[in-house]
């Protein structure tokens, strides 16, 4: 069944490409000399980092406005239901000790929503601190240093978020079927019902046996 629109998929992959370019080039700027394979290309790495950050802004800003083609995605991430809170409370309990099943989730489960919100906040933080670092020569040294510190802390925040996102999307068999949703737009109906029961259409009920319907000769033979 369809899960992601074309616009949502395009924004997702452009955002992912920009983030990966930023993380990799950022590593090239951050790693110490002895462990840095691109030390001699620092200027080029810095250019890539700055260009990728501008590309990120070019992706994010048009997607934020009212009437943007992915507004529905923002809505689905932003709105939390009672089931979301229950899900968050129960997901931390190991499955074998969980007395009640996880409540059915919408198009995004509560963990995905929190991940998205944290990534969005971290992105804004990266843009602000990165701009201060970029223009640090023109600002106070203490502000530039504070921004430098927080830029690194944000990196430590976002790397586990992205790593967890990728493990769930690429590695874990129970969640891997979601990958085709962000690639092709559709997920399997059984996966949607199992993992996103509040969003997927319920299974059609089995038709009641009708006594007026004569048994087929085959059934009769088999019986």
């Amino acid at each position: 069944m369809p899960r992601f629109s074309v616009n949502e998929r395009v924004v997702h992959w452009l955002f992912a490409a920009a983030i990966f370019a930023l993380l990799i080039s950022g590593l090239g700027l951050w790693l110490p000399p002895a462990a840095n394979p691109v030390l001699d290309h620092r200027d080029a790495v810095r250019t890539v980092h700055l260009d990728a950050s501008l590309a990120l802004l070019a992706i994010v800003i048009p997607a934020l406005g009212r009437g943007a083609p992915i507004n529905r995605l923002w809505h689905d991430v932003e709105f939390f239901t009672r089931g979301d809170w229950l899900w968050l409370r129960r997901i931390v309990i190991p499955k074998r000790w969980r007395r009640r099943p996880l409540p059915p989730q919408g198009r995004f489960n509560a963990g995905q929503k929190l991940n998205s919100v944290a990534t969005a906040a971290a992105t804004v933080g990266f843009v602000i601190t990165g701009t201060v670092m970029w223009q640090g020569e023109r600002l106070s040294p203490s502000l530039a240093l504070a921004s430098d510190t927080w830029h690194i802390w944000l990196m430590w925040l976002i790397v586990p978020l992205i790593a967890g996102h990728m493990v769930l999307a690429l590695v874990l068999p129970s969640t891997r079927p979601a990958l085709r949703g962000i690639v092709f737009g559709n997920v399997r109906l059984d996966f949607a019902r199992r993992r996103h029961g509040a969003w997927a259409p319920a299974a059609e009920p089995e038709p009641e046996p009708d006594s007026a319907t004569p048994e087929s000769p085959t059934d009769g033979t088999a019986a």
Partner: protein
Amino acid sequence: MDSPFEHAPDELLSARPIGRRIFLGMLGVGAAGLAFTELGLRNDAAGDGLPQAVPLGSTPIDSSESSIGQHPNLVTTERFRYYSVGYIPAYDPKKWNLRLDGEGVKGNLVLTLDQLKAFPNVAIKATFRCVTGWRVRDCVWRGVRVRDVVDAVGQNGKAKFVTFYSGDGVYTDSLTIAQARSDDAILCWELNGAPLIREQGMPLRLIYPDMYGYKNVKWVRRLEVKSGRDVGFWEQQGWEIEAYIGSPSTSSG
């Protein structure tokens, strides 16, 4: 093609916009953290700006911590970021020497590192500050004063400035003769009890802690004493020649 949203149940319609609150809350925490960090750094900076002389022979540095701040693999909140505008020059102890010449001195001088180390050693404890904002506190630099090297041949009336040449063949910077002759201008080979690492300027760099790091030329190979001022590498890009720490022209534009 079906819309992805046509199956949304009624529960979603009564959901609350928590996401934006979490988002704004995280931004608020981040902004407050940034402000507090900045304030703390500003207060720290007000208290440790002046270099302090450290008695030699009893440098109170634990050997296990001797490389903190300069070791490239050590991640601390205060560590050096290494920059080089050219390549990092190789160091061959057998071939390396320091040259002193120029119209402002009475002769030329070529010194090996051992000969240089034979000059009276001094140490300075100071905060190293980069104009881009980062700093490393409590650096203990060991070396010899520039003025002792200059006085080894003697200066003349044309000695107005000293230009320091980096071994990378690209980078230069200069001090006035008064700055170069001050107690705090040293040619150093050691930081916190350990020899300078390659990225830090091995074997010799200038340290003048009153000014931002870009004045502190690394891989120094030549001192030229002269009557006219050479404009250094970054100064040709518009940076201040008198890069005193905290001066408005360098800290705010």
